[in-house]
């Protein structure tokens, strides 16, 4: 490897060992170490994911039959709202940047920490505060919100449920996301190791950089929109309330100005993680480094221009419809560029087919389905039919779960040995893949078909003609669950009983693999000096 040979001396204790004056839980809760904060996010996020997923399973049970009465309609409406809010705001948006970004951004650019370590900890507290508020909103006031995660006015200002608190929770979570963005941009500009030029940065860092910009440029719009909803509910300011001259479409514009870019906050870091995994296991340099780096920035940029594609049937002007549909098509191009470059990176490699690669390729497949359905519904004539049906539900589960979710698993499989110094069972990781893949497609592909047939989303009760499809999907969800349980069981087992992993079990080329597993508190004994590109193969064997 032409890049650094800096190593941490084996004697240094890892960051998992308390080194300050405080010990135990307290040491974790007051830490400013980016790695510990990353792990704290991980713990929180896995919990939220399972909570949200369990709710998803319940929703599937309701849909088993058109006569199902296992819960009231009100409960069902609350469930999909809470499921959406948890999955979006507590899992996929913060997901990769907060966990792997925090942990690996400083390691990959050869820094000791992020630019503002204390702000970083504060972000975690904001995140947890938001989560606590979100949970509180379920049990207080008028009960859990029933508006869907989109909180469309004027329903959200009229319903008696506890929208105010839920929306405030999302506001606090947005704050956390914004501060993380500020932190990462500053870190990337200021903390790169000597010789780490912009085009020597690993592509994961590029994707985080692009994400961070979206975070600070789009999130404030959500914040103010949510504030307006709260004021509307508390004081009746009338901006979204048609009875007072307000306009519900203004709400939709403001909401999607944030929430469309937010989907790229979800997917960009995921793409970044995939970009790390593929060259490592292809044992060759990435194909089209600059194309991938620029396409991240392009997605972030153009992604801010397409929000109107969620409003094609809302009565937006025809000109608006046309412009937003056109821009939607353009934003798909950089994603296509990435897919082609990933595929090309496999060409003439020397492929070591390990679990992370399997999951990464699965990501590409599922993301392509999600992305291509996205393009289809971006076409106006098609959107008019599939908007707010299960086709949309299928689309976004493919991109969010098949995309970001699977990428999250792939990243965990890839970096787990570095984070914990333990290796999981690779065989079990392969075994888990089958039910995940089969169940996933049974569940969500069926949703695409249901949507085409005209099954609207957010329906407690479906018409009898959709029974078959719903049964298939529900069975799929059980298969999926079994796979996920195997996968996470495997991690849990490895955490306690796993074999020790070396500092570079995969032969990875980037800086994080040059330090010990798990890394020492200071990351590197001496700050490395970078002399070459990030994906330089073959990797020199290390002692």
């Amino acid at each position, binding site marked *: 490897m032409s890049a650094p040979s800096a190593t941490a001396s084996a004697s240094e204790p890892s960051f998992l060992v308390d080194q300050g004056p405080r010990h135990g839980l307290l040491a974790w809760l007051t830490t400013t170490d980016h790695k510990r904060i990353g792990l704290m996010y991980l713990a929180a996020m896995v919990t939220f994911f399972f909570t949200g997923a369990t709710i998803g399973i319940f929703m599937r049970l309701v849909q088993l039959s058109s006569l199902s009465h296992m819960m009231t309609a009100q409960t069902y409406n609350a469930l999909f709202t809470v499921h959406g809010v948890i999955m979006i705001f507590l899992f996929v948006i913060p997901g990769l940047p907060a966990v792997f970004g925090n942990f690996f951004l400083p390691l990959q650019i050869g820094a000791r920490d992020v630019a503002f370590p204390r702000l970083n900890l504060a972000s975690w507290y904001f995140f947890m505060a938001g989560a606590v508020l979100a949970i509180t909103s379920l049990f207080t006031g008028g009960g859990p919100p029933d508006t869907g995660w989109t909180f469309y006015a004027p329903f959200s200002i009229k319903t008696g449920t506890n929208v105010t608190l839920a929306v405030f929770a999302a506001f606090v979570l947005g704050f956390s996301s914004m501060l993380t963005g500020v932190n990462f941009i500053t870190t990337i500009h200021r903390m790169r190791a000597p*010789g780490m030029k912009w085009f020597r940065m690993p592509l994961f860092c590029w994707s985080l950089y692009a994400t961070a910009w979206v975070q600070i440029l789009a999130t404030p719009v959500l914040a103010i929109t949510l504030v307006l909803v709260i004021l509307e509910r508390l004081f009746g300011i009338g901006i979204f309330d048609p009875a007072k001259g307000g306009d519900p479409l203004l709400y939709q514009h403001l909401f999607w100005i944030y929430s469309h870019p937010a989907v790229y906050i979800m997917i960009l870091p995921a793409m970044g993680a995939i970009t790390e995994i593929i060259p490592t296991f292809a044992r060759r340099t990435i194909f089209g480094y600059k194309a991938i780096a620029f396409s991240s920035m392009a997605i972030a940029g153009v992604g801010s221009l397409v929000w109107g594609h969620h409003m094609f049937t809302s009565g937006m002007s025809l000109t608006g419809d046309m412009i937003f549909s056109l821009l939607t098509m353009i934003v798909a191009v950089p994603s296509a560029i990435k897919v082609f470059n990933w595929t090309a990176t496999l060409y003439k490699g020397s492929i070591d087919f390990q679990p992370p690669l399997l999951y990464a390729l699965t990501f590409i497949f599922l993301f392509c389905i999600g992305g291509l359905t996205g393009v289809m519904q971006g076409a106006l004539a098609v959107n008019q039919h599939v908007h707010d049906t299960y086709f949309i539900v299928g689309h976004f589960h493919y991109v969010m779960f098949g995309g970001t979710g699977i990428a999250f698993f792939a990243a965990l499989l890839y970096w787990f040995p570095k984070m914990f110094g333990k290796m999981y069972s690779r065989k079990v990781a392969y075994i888990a893949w089958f039910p995940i893949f089969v169940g996933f497609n049974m569940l969500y592909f069926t949703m695409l078909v249901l949507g085409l047939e005209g099954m609207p989303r957010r329906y407690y009760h479906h018409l009898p003609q959709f029974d078959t499809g719903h049964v298939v999907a529900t069975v799929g969800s059980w298969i999926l669950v079994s796979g996920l349980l195997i996968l996470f069981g495997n991690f849990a087992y490895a955490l306690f009983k796993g074999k020790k992993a070396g500092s570079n079990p995969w032969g990875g080329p980037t800086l994080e693999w040059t330090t010990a597993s798990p890394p020492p508190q200071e990351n590197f004994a001496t700050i490395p000096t970078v002399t070459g590109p990030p994906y330089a193969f073959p990797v020199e064997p290390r002692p």
Partner: protein
Amino acid sequence: MTEQTKSMVEHPEESPGYGTFVAVWAALVVLTGLLVFVSHFGQKAAVWGLLTITPLKAGLVFYFFMHLKYEGPLVKGVVFVALGTLLIFFALTYADVAFR
């Protein structure tokens, strides 16, 4: 810190004295007066005043009070990106509003 980032740190140390800022302040006050004056000539003039004088005032604050004049390209770029983004948000919202 890399070589290139170091160069960005260097911004002219000799910052201007009290006089410059008082002058800027005076300009701001004059512009405010102008804005108020202009807005007496009906709706149209008020809107034009709003669209021209106000950004000018904001620009003065940014440029001098907030030291943008003395910052390197990075900070200038950050502000530029923010304003550009806002402009785009406006423009695309108007793609809907203006053609209803």
